[in-house]
C-alpha cells in the first residue's frame, strides 16, 4: 500500500512538472519559463548561497509568527470554546480578522510598527491565527456530550476533563486548523516581504521579476511551496504519533 501511494505521488509529480515543461516550451507566455529552466535557476541560487540567505531572512517572521499563532491561537480557541462569555467577547475579532483584506491593512501596520520584523510577524499572525482559533473553539464546543458525562460520572475533575477528554477529542480539528493556519502563515510571510520591504524570498521574487529573470522568480515560488508541503507533512506525522488511535485518514500529501 505504502508503495502504491508512493508511485501515485511520483506519477502525479511527473504529470504536473511535465505539463509545466510543455507549457513553458510552447511558450504560454514570454514570462513563463520551463520547469527545467526554473530548476536550473533554483540549483544556481542554492549553489551561490543566495537561496539560503533569503530563507534565513524569510523564516524569521514565519517561524515567530506561526509559533505565536499556534500557542496563542490554541489557547484562545480553548478558552472561547469553554466559555460563552469569552466567545461573545473575542470571537468577532477573529471573524473580522479572517475576512479582512489584509493587503489593504498593511499600510496601517507599517505606520504603527514600522517596516521591521514586528510588522511582518503581525502579517503572519493575522493570516494564520483566525483559522486556528476558530477551529479549536468549534472543536471544543463539539466534544461528544457522552464522553464528558463519562468523565464526570467516573469522578473526573475539570482538569481531567480538559486534558484527558476535551483536548484529545478536539485534536483532529485543532490539527486541521493548524494545517490551514500554517499554510496561510506561509502566504502571509511572502505577502509581507512583497508589500512591506523586499527581503528574503520576497526579494528574490521582486528582484528577479524586475530584471525579467523569470526562471529565478518561479524557482523562488516553487521552493516556498515545497517548504510548505514538507512542513505540513511534518505536522501530520506529529499528529499521528501523538494521537495514534485517531486515525481518520487525512489526505494532505
Amino acid at each position, binding site marked *: 500500500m505504502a508503495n502504491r501511494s508512493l508511485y501515485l505521488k511520483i506519477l502525479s509529480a511527473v504529470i504536473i512538472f511535465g505539463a509545466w515543461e510543455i507549457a513553458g516550451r510552447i511558450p504560454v507566455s514570454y514570462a513563463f519559463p520551463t520547469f527545467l529552466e526554473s530548476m536550473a535557476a533554483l540549483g544556481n541560487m542554492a549553489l551561490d548561497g543566495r537561496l539560503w540567505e533569503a530563507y534565513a531572512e524569510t523564516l524569521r517572521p514565519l517561524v515567530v509568527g506561526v509559533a505565536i499563532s499556534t500557542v496563542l491561537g490554541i489557547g484562545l480557541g480553548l478558552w472561547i470554546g469553554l466559555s460563552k462569555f469569552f466567545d461573545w467577547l473575542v470571537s468577532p475579532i477573529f471573524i473580522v480578522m479572517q475576512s479582512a483584506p489584509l493587503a489593504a491593512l498593511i499600510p496601517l501596520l507599517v505606520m504603527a510598527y514600522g517596516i521591521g520584523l514586528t510588522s511582518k510577524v503581525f502579517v503572519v499572525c493575522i493570516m494564520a491565527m483566525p483559522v486556528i482559533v476558530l477551529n479549536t473553539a468549534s472543536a471544543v464546543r463539539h466534544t461528544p456530550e457522552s*464522553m464528558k458525562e463519562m468523565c464526570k460520572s*467516573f469522578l473526573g475533575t475539570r482538569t*481531567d476533563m480538559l486534558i484527558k477528554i476535551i483536548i484529545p477529542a478536539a485534536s483532529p480539528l485543532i490539527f486541521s486548523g493548524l494545517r490551514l493556519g500554517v499554510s496561510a502563515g506561509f502566504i502571509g510571510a511572502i505577502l509581507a516581504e512583497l508589500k512591506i520591504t523586499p527581503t528574503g524570498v520576497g526579494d528574490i521574487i521582486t528582484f528577479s521579476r524586475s530584471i525579467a529573470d523569470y526562471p529565478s522568480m518561479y524557482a523562488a515560488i516553487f521552493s516556498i511551496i515545497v517548504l510548505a508541503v514538507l512542513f505540513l507533512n511534518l505536522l501530520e506525522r506529529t499528529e499521528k504519533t501523538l494521537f495514534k488511535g485517531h486515525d481518520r485518514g487525512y489526505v494532505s500529501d
Partner: protein
Amino acid sequence: MSLIKEAPATAEPALSEIAVSVRNISKNYGAVEALKDLTLEFPRGQLTSLLGPSGCGKTTLLKIIAGLLEPTSGEVEVNGKPVTGPGPNRAFVFQDFALLPWATVMRNVAFGLELRSINKSKREDIAAKYIKEVGLGGFENSYPHELSGGMRQRVGLARALSVDAKVLLMDEPFSAVDEQTRRKFQEDLLGLVQNENKTFIFVTHSIEEAVYVSDQIAILLPRPSRVSEIIRPSGFRHKDHDQIRRDPEYLDIVDDIWASLRSYVE
C-alpha cells in the same frame, strides 16, 4: 397506584434491603415537566429495569441517580446517603459506549481508575482482570474502532465493573448492538447479576429484554413521567437461561406490559 405482581412460588427477597431510593423527584426543563413526583426503590443485589415509551424520562431518572443531572426537587439516596453528584458507589454504562477513540481497550477500561489516581501498574492489573471477565482477552491493545459494536460495549461494561461500584447504572446498554449480540449480552447480564453482589439499574425500551433480565420492572408513563406499575417476575428467575423465553409467566408479563403501554405509542 403501584400494582405489585407476585408469583406465588417465591418468598419476597428482603425488600428492606434498599440500595437506592428515589423520593419525590421532579425534573423540569423550562416549562416542560420531564419527571413529576416520582418515587421508586431499588432492592440491593437485584436488577431493576426502567421501562417505558420514548420520552418518558427513564434516561433522565437514571442520570439523576448518577448525579449527572440535578433534580428540580426531591432526593436520591444511595445506601442511605443523599446524592449530590457523581460518586464512587455508582458506575455508568453508556448507550453509545462513550469510549475514548484514541485510547486502547486497556486504557479505556482502566480510565475510571485513572481518574481516581490509582497508579498505572495497579490499575492495569485490575483492568486486565475485567477485560478477561467480559471476554475481551487478547484485545488489550486494540483501539475501539477496531472492535465490533458488541465488543465496544463489553469495554464499556468492563470499565464500569473495574471501579467496583456497588450500583451499576446502565442506559440502554444493548440498544446499539445487533440482535444476536444483544441476546448473548442479556444472558451474560443474568450471570453478572447472580455472581456480582451489585445493584443494577437498567434502562431499556425493549419489553422482552426488561422481562428477561429483571428482578423488578418499573413501568414509566410519559408526560409527566410517573411510575405506573411495578412488576416483579419471579416464577422463572431461577430457571435455566434458555427456558425463560418459553415460560408462560414470561409471556404473560410481556403481553400485559404491551397492553398497558400500547396506548402511549404512536
